[in-house]
Each structure stands twice: as C-alpha cells, then as structure tokens.
C-alpha cells in the first residue's frame, strides 16, 4: 500500500468534522472473545447492529468471534443474526443486517491454545489486506474472568498486542478481580502486555446517559455548586434496588453477592460523581483523576469499622408483583446454606475539605419493594423555624433526588404553605423528568461504550488506580464477611439477617443511620 509523506503544514485537525454530531471512528476490526456467550448475544451484537443501523460504525468495520464452540463462519453469522433479531432494541433492516454480517469471521478453540491466536492473526491480516490500509484492533474480553489474563498474555505472546501502523485496544468486562489482591494481580498481568492507554475496563453503568447527566447536572448549573458541601448537606443516600430476584444467574450471583455485583463498581462510581471536584476539562484523565481523589478520601475500613458501617442480608420468601416468591436459598442453583448476601448497605465518609462529616449511605438489594436507582441529597434543616408555633408539622429539610431509573429526573422537595388562613407548611415536590424534555432516545450503554473504545476515548472506562481504589474500600468488607473463603456447604452463619421478599430490606439497616437520618422509602 502506498503511503503519503506528511508535509510540515498538514492540518492537525480534520476540518470536515466541525458541526457533526457523530465523530468519525477509525477503521477497526473488533474481536469478541466469548462471542457465543450470553453478554455477546444479549448486548454486544445488538449494540453493533444498532450502531450499523445508524451509520455509526467505522467506515471500515469487521467483526471476528472467538469461542470454544466448534462451528463454521456461516454458523456464527447465523447465531449473530438470531441474537440481533431477538435482542435488538429496533427491528433490524434486512439490508443493513446483511451488510453488517457479510464479512463476519469465526475462530474456534480454547483461549489458551496458541493456534487460536495464529488463526486470529491470519484473519486480522486478511481484513487489513481487504481494506488496503491498517485497521485498528479492539479485543473485547466477554468471557469468564478467569480467562482475562490467559487471553491477554496469549495476545502478547502472539504479538497481537501491538501494531506498527494502527491502534490496538483491549476491552475488559467486569468483574475486574474479586478481591484487591486479584485486581492488583490482574492489573499487573494486563499492564505487562498492554499500556494503560490501550486498556478499557468496562463498567457499563458509566455508559448510561443517566450517569453522564449527573456531571451535566452538577457542573452545568451554577445554582447547586454553592450548596454542594458539608456546610449545607446533611447526608447523601444512594440506592440501587431491584424488584426481581436472581433469576437464572445463581451461578454468577452466588459467587458474587450484592457488594461485589453493584457496590464495588457501579455504586462507588455514582458516589464519585456526586462527590468529585469539577474537573479542569472533560478529558478521560482529568475526570478520572478527580474520581480517584474521592475514592482515596474514603478511609479504608478496619474489621471493627466493618461491623459498624455495613449490613448484609438475604431475602426470604415473600411477595413480589402480586405473586408469592421464594427465598434466596430456595432459588434454583443456589447452594444449600449459601451465605451470599442479596442486600448490602454501607455508611461511608469522604474525608476531605468538602465532605468531612457527611455520611454517604449506599444500599442495594434484590427482591426489594420496587426497582429504583436514585441519589438523594438531604440538605441541613433551616437554622430557625419561624413557623413552629403554627403547628407546621410537615416542615422537612430540602431534599434533592436524582433518579437514574426507571423515571430519570430530578426532584426537589420544598416546604410550601397549605392554602388557607393559617401559615401551615407541608413538603411539596418540584419535579423535572428527562423523558418529558428531550426528543431523542438514549442509546444503550454498550453502544456508547463500544464506540468510545474504538475511538480511544477512555472517559467512561475505569482506570487501573480507580479499580484498585474501589477494591481498597471493599476488600476489608469482603474479608470480614468471609466471602473470600470458598463456600462450605452447611456452614451458614446463623446471624445473617433476612428480609422478606418485596419489603424495604432488613431492619438491621436502620442501625447504620446517624441520629435523625432515615432511609427513603423504596
């Protein structure tokens, strides 16, 4: 292929991208390891189709699936087609679907087999020849976590981790380790092969529009920032509640639990978005620097702290959606006597100038009263209540609630006078709902994240020090709860609190609250 010598006055910027809503993505071959798995079928392939539908894939794009199942390219194309038809958020356009799948290739074999990488190298070279230009490479690890280091090292051994004329990136799914030690070890092994700039650790929560909106809410509106500190804020409460149980995910969930499934990653990220300082710019490094500072300001709990600042529990039989539902231990696939928590609540503090003394309450659970993810910021009460003589029992501190799902929006609780001759106050809500204010439909998180990874924009991905800082907070809790030990049948802790399915969670969670604080109703 002929190359052009660059003249000294070549433009650094592309003048044709001004004003475009969608910026170009460099020509790329995306390789999905674990391409026949559930995540690929339900999320990744439909996301790729939707990007293709909107014309948002790179100008030259190729897809390669790698998995253990033995099958031909055509079989894999058939699988992709089925998955897209079943799980895509829109009905596929036949010609776009055919165009997307036209060149899809499949490589079968175990992830530790050298010949798999030799075959993969041939496929990548073939696509490059076809394109007549260097193609970036993105390796998406959508496999069981045990294979992450195996694949990364095999990519290194086969020389696929570098390309002289193109970018090579690796996208790693969660969980990134199950303890601090594992996370550090995984980082060490990954960073021995790839530079940090090549690594994109997925936390799909960060790809949600709702999470990105939090930064716009905080940093594009001058009215909140003056109040956003310990002088005006009494407490912060972050809730991620699910109405559903574990479904068919017993294998995964029982080895993970609520703390590792949601708090260690997603909910600590939400906390960072609430507590971070305004970044100098919205570049990946600046944003992630600010988030790491927040995580570093949260003291690592000691064993004694863990008993004081955490509650875990498991759901027992109850009612959900008008039906009787079974308890966690009765769910199919859950080992007898499992001590895995389906509910976890934490009280954390961010020890810095802005937040010292403000409790951050985090709670998450399965089979709670309803599905909701929200951040409630409670302001301090007014210093003098002039209306107390008039029986204004309803006066309550202002509360700002950012709801992430299901009805994304912002609600501000204010005190207002009840119409009448007396000055009686009761709380009212001022509501803003995103759904009522925008015409566009939010893209799926994976659509955004795959595009960003192919573009090399790491803003919505977790950096190595961020992952380790998250684990630094959660690891002592994991250790204390004994989750790091292999499960022993029949070794159930009698003291593990239970909560009825469909309820607000265990009563023990109230013990975490500082005097005067209370959990918001789920």
């Amino acid at each position, binding site marked *: 292929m*002929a190359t052009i010598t660059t003249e000294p006055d070549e433009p650094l910027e592309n003048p044709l991208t001004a*004003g475009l809503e969608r910026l170009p993505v460099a020509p790329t071959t995306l390789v999905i390891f674990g391409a026949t798995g559930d995540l690929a079928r339900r999320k990744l392939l439909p996301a790729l189709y939707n990007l293709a539908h909107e014309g948002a894939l*790179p100008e030259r794009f190729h897809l390669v699936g790698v998995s253990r199942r033995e099958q031909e390219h055509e079989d894999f194309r058939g699988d992709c087609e089925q998955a897209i038809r079943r799980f895509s958020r829109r009905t596929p356009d036949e010609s776009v679907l055919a165009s997307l799948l036209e060149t899809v290739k499949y490589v079968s074999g175990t992830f530790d087999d050298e010949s798999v990488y030799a075959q993969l190298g041939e496929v990548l070279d073939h696509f490059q020849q076809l394109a007549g230009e260097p193609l970036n490479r993105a390796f998406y690890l959508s496999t069981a976590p045990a294979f992450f280091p195996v694949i990364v090292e095999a990519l290194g051994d086969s020389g696929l981790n570098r390309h002289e004329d193109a970018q090579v990136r690796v996208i790693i799914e969660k969980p990134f380790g199950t303890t601090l030690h594992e996370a550090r070890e995984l980082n060490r092994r990954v960073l021995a092969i790839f530079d940090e700039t090549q690594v994109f650790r997925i936390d799909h929560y960060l790809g949600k529009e709702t999470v990105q909106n939090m930064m716009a809410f905080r940093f594009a509106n001058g009215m909140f920032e003056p109040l956003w500190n310990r002088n005006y804020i009494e407490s912060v409460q972050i809730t991620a509640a699910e109405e559903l149980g574990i479904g068919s995910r017993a294998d995964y969930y029982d080895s993970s639990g609520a703390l590792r499934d949601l708090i260690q990653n997603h909910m600590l990220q939400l906390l960072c978005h609430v507590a971070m300082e305004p970044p100098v710019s919205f570049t990946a490094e600046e944003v992630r620097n600010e988030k790491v500072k927040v995580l570093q300001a949260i003291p690592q709990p000691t064993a004694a702290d863990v008993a004081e600042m955490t509650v875990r529990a498991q759901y027992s039989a109850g009612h959900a959606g008008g039906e009787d539902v079974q308890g966690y231990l009765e769910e199919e696939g859950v080992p007898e006597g499992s001590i895995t928590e389906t509910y976890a609540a934490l009280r954390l503090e961010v020890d810095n100038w802005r937040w010292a003394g403000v409790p951050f309450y985090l709670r998450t659970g399965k089979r709670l009263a309803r599905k909701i993810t929200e951040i409630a910021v409670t302001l301090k009460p007014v210093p003098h209540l002039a209306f107390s003589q008039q029986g204004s029992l309803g006066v309550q501190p202002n509360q700002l609630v950012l709801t992430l799902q299901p009805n994304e929006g912002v609600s501000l609780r204010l005190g207002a006078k009840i119409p009448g001759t007396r000055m009686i106050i009761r709380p009212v809500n001022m509501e803003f709902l995103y759904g009522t204010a925008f015409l566009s439909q939010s893209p799926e998180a994976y659509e955004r994240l795959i595009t960003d990874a192919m573009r090399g924009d790491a803003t919505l991905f977790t950096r190595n020090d961020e992952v380790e800082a998250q684990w630094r907070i959660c690891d002592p809790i994991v250790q204390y709860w004994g989750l790091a030990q292999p499960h022993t049948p029949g070794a159930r802790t009698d003291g593990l609190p239970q909560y009825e399915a469909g309820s607000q969670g265990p009563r023990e969670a109230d013990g975490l609250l500082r005097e005067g604080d209370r959990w918001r109703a789920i």
Partner: protein
Amino acid sequence: MSAITSEAVWSEQGTTPDAIEAALRELLAQRHAENGNFVPARVLNMIAFVDREWSGEIANRLRGVGRYHASRLLVLSYEPRRERLDARVMVASEGEPAPGELALLRETVVVEIGDRHLDDLLTIADPLVVTDLPTLLWSPHGYHDVVEGLLEMSQAILLDSVEEPVAREALDRASALNARGTYVVDLAWLRSTPWRERLAAAFDPPRLRGETRRISAVSVRHHPASTVAAALMVGWLASRLEWRVEALEEADGYAYRGSANAGGRDVRLSLDVAPELQVPGLAGVAIETASGRGLSLDRGIGGLRAHWRAPDGGEREWTIPGASRGEAGVLGEGIRQALLREPTYVPALNVARTLLP
C-alpha cells in the same frame, strides 16, 4: 402521532383561542386525573401552516416522525373562504403507563382558519403554544408571506429547499431568514448528513488529513429536483476547506460546471442530475485528489457503497452499513434539529448561493 393507543379529544365550531386553550388545560387535567403517571411532554412547540386540501398528507407525514413528534403541535389548516374558526384538540399517549413508569402526553391542536383570520394569525397562534418552549414553524405549502407574521414567535423555521421551484430563490430565502435571526432547519441539508459524516471519516486518519488540501475535483450527482442539495454539499466542502468559488455555469440545461480556487490550486466542480433517483437528495459524491486518490460514495443496498482508488491504481469497494431514514426519518430529524445549533449550514449556504446563478 405514532401508534396512538390512548387519546382524549375536544372540538368546537365557532370557537376562540381562549376556549381552545382552556380545553387544552382541561384535557391535560383530565388525563392526569385518570392516571397520575401521564405527564405532558415539554420539549418543543411546532406550528404547521397547511393548505386544508392537503392537510391529510401532512398529517400522514407527521405520523411517521414517531418520538420526534413535537410536544405541542399546532396545525393551522387554511381554507381561503372559511369564515368561522373551528378547532379540534387531541391529547394522546402511545399507551397506558406501566406500573411505576411514565407515559408522555403529546398535544395536537388543529385550528381551521380562513382569509379573514390571516391578519391576526399571531393572536390566534400565540396563546396556543406552551410558554417558554422553543417554537418551530413549518409551512410546507408555501404561503411565505402569510407565515411571515408568525416568525416573531418562532425561534426556528423548518423548510425544505429542494421543494422550491427555483433553486437560487430557495437559497436566498433561507439566507434571508437566517439574517433575521431565525434558526433555519433545512431538510435539504439534513439529507446530506450521512454523506458529510462519511466524507469526514474518509479524510480523518491523520495520514490522510493532508489530502483535503490536495482535492482536485468534486462531482455530485443528485435527484433532478435537488440541485440545491448538491450545491449545499459543494458549499460545505468549500466553506470547510476555505475554497474561493465563483458561479457555476449551466451545461446542457441539466448540469453545472465550474471551479474553485483552493489556495492557488484549481478544484473542478460539477453537479449532475441522476434521473434514476426516485427520492430527494443526493445520488453520489466523487472526490479526486492531486496525489491520485479517488473516493466515491453512492447510494447502495444496506448503506452507502464506497469506492476507493489508491495512488498506485489499486481499487477497493465496500458497503458502509447504515439504514435509510426515509422521508419520515428526515422530517423527524428536522424537528429534533430545531433544538440544536449546527454551525456549518450557514457557511455552506453562503457558498451555495455563489455557486448557483
């Protein structure tokens, strides 16, 4: 106006804007009382001034825009000899809200008007839009003088330059509207978005960015009635790449030829009709560079068909996946664009006005 499954309706003959506005409030309260999870969308007002004879066709077009339906759509349906003001109000949602979820309500107001109402059009329309929301004005059947009076309450105007019979007049009108401070959303421009995205992508790799300074020829093929769209495409390239242009010359009555000056270097320009194209817009764009590269994009099945020629003569063809938005999709995009501010249209428009005599 997509798949409506739940609708409350009010209508009255010989009515007034006050009565219509009261009916809107009443219907909204009624729907909220039915179910507290019904909430009115509050994004954008849209005023459509339509010929009553063709209002059904416009209703069909708006039905196709799906979620891009304006929060409140005010249709001023014009019938010259009408004396009486009649109105119909619909407050609709796409379904009943699921437990714990919201369902958006969208409002459509159709007001039948005649010649005698035209002088006071502003006093009819103004009370019927939601205060503090931006208003988009659309007059698909012409009547430019009539809707002039509505411009002062509109922040954006939707037009389709390819629908004007004379290309240059279409461009002049868009330019005049822009000069008055009204944000112009031109469907002729929006149809070219995928083409512009792909051309930008083709020259995006750092080693190819310099090629934009070596472009030696641009040719655009277009639907017989879409000369404006082709001129805007060349206008976009010329304005982004800082070319100086002069008026193109008409060739054979169907094509235009000319050149641009790109820093002392000539760029050949041509606009040609593609008689086979059935839909408005572009049929193909081809670019040549002085270093021997060639890129062409043509409409294809399942996306744009790309053809690339390297300086050594090697050629490659492939399809860039992407679904056609169809005319309903383009109209929906036009409504969405009323909330944005695209900075490259006006410079492209200014060049296009120079190009077309």
